[in-house]
């Protein structure tokens, strides 16, 4: 083939902002979600509060986390879960499955960035739905609000956790380039995230030898790190270290994502999907 050097056209951010906006508009068509989100949040938090209260009544609790703190932990974990549990890049899997990915490749866009923008729009919409749930958590369950500095650190860490989750989902959906069916793998990863990410049970309650193993996995970077910052189990002195680890996970998973995407896209262009 003739040896023209591949060159990228001028990058414009606007289309990706539009993708995110359209994803929000699309999610907005499912308005019923507002009620189910709030409803299931209240029910699950109520149940968790019952469980923790019972455990604490029998002195089965760790010393350095009060009952009120652990209920706060559960509430914040549930709130985070509402946005974190969304599979933002499901569209990639769907489009690979029905072959419509081809039309995306025929547009002058960076295709993985389109999926990122679309997924983020979806997540932002659901984040907006959090407001009533947050109010309930504050006013009815009376959860603890940490000082602004801790809160700010929590949000930064949450954002980093979101990116870890994004790349993890992206990698999973990329496997559809080869297998076309990913639900089994995805189910396992969901279980692992629930259990080993600290969404359900704070990881500090796990036996020490298990904690070593769990912290070596990316799941803790998604939930546990921001949550432990929130309940002040991670002191400010360690912020740099724990967030550094989150960033490291983003870099590693980002590289894996890139490699997977390139190989997958190559497979599409060479094999025709």
């Amino acid at each position, binding site marked *: 083939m003739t040896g023209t050097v591949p060159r990228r056209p001028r990058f414009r951010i606007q289309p990706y902002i539009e993708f995110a906006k*359209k994803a929000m508009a699309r999610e907005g068509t499912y308005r019923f979600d507002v009620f189910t989100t709030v409803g299931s949040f209240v029910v699950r938090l109520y149940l968790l509060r019952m469980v923790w209260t019972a455990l604490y009544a029998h002195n089965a609790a760790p010393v350095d986390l009060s009952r009120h703190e652990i209920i706060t932990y559960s509430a914040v974990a549930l709130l985070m879960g509402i946005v974190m549990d969304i599979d933002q890049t499901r569209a990639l899997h769907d489009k690979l499955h029905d072959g419509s990915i081809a039309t995306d*490749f025929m547009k*002058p866009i960076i295709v993985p960035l389109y999926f990122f923008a679309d997924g983020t729009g979806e997540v932002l919409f659901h984040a907006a739905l959090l407001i009533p749930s947050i109010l309930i958590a504050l006013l009815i369950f009376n959860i603890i609000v940490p000082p602004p500095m801790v809160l700010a650190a929590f949000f930064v860490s949450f954002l980093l956790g979101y990116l870890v989750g994004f790349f993890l989902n992206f990698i999973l959906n990329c496997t559809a380039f080869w297998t076309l069916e990913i639900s089994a793998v995805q189910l396992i990863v969901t279980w692992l995230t629930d259990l080993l990410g600290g969404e359900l049970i704070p990881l500090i309650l796990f036996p020490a030898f298990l904690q070593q193993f769990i912290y070596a996995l990316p799941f803790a970077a998604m939930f546990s790190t921001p949550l432990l910052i929130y309940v002040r189990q991670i002191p400010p002195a360690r912020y740099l270290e724990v967030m550094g680890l989150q960033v490291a996970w983003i870099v590693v998973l980002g590289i894996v994502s890139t490699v997977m995407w390139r190989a997958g896209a190559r497979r599409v262009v060479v094999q*025709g999907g």
Partner: protein
Amino acid sequence: MPIIEAIDLRKVFRRIVRQPGIGGAIGALFSREYEDKVAVDDVSFSLAEGELVGYLGPNGAGKSTTIKMLTGILVPTSGVLRVAGLVPYQRRQENAQNIGVVFGQRSQLYWDLPLRESFELLRSIYDVPLNRYQENMRHFAEILDLERFLDTPVRQLSLGERMRGDFAAAMLHDPKIVYLDEPTIGLDVVAKEAIRVFIAQINRERGTTVILTTHDLADVERLTPRIVLIDHGKVIYDGALERLRTEYGTHRVLVVTTVDPVPDDFAVPGAEVESREPYVVRLGFDRRTLTAEALIRRVLERYAISDVSIIEPDIDTIVRRIYLEGYQQNAVGAPS
């Protein structure tokens, strides 16, 4: 200089050979046997700017594979391909800016959004200046009659409405070239006609280069003098549709209505009895060896007849014959 040039374009797909059944599926995990399938086999053609060409062939002939290579989403195995001066797969994004694509079987509109919002998104993707966008929208809304359903979510549109939306979407950024892959498939007569008028208009008024693949030969007859015929990945004919008709459509039929019932041994030298009814007989003959006048004279010499008519080969019949029997070089002469 041609706007599209393909020289010895070739695409070979490699597939894993798998024995049927569970055993085969498990076996495929361990030993991989590959099988090469040549989808496009040394195809060469070129298009001048503003040309409209019908790209025809039976299912699996390699039409869609060619289109995918032209759009840059498939990398050719070998050969040279240039579209508006670019090698499509090397400069996919820039190439995308130059082309518009319509698939009859697949929409590029956003399923959950009203049509209008899909257009706005495309305006942003292709960076269409606002005044150009508004002008195009006004123009397309008028000729494609979009106004009525601009605010309807795409999933609620009828096929005809969706296709019209897809055409407008493909043309919004004034592409130099459009690829239309079976754009009239499944449409009713009225919608088909609207689409054909639109294609003719963009080709004529905007000078857009058009490659049209279709199974509906009426599309081609209506729109373009030139066709490229492909079968088993090879170009078997490239030239005027009319020439194909005159040179390949040599088989004509003389329909004879007889005065007396058609006898069992009805026969005329140089013609073949194709079907026989009590008073009507159909005689197939080759235009190259026998004129209609001569055949009619021969019939009159032998039988009493009350009426004759001639059925000329239609393009469907010609193309069907080529698909079925393969293409014979000598029947048409060397392809240009």
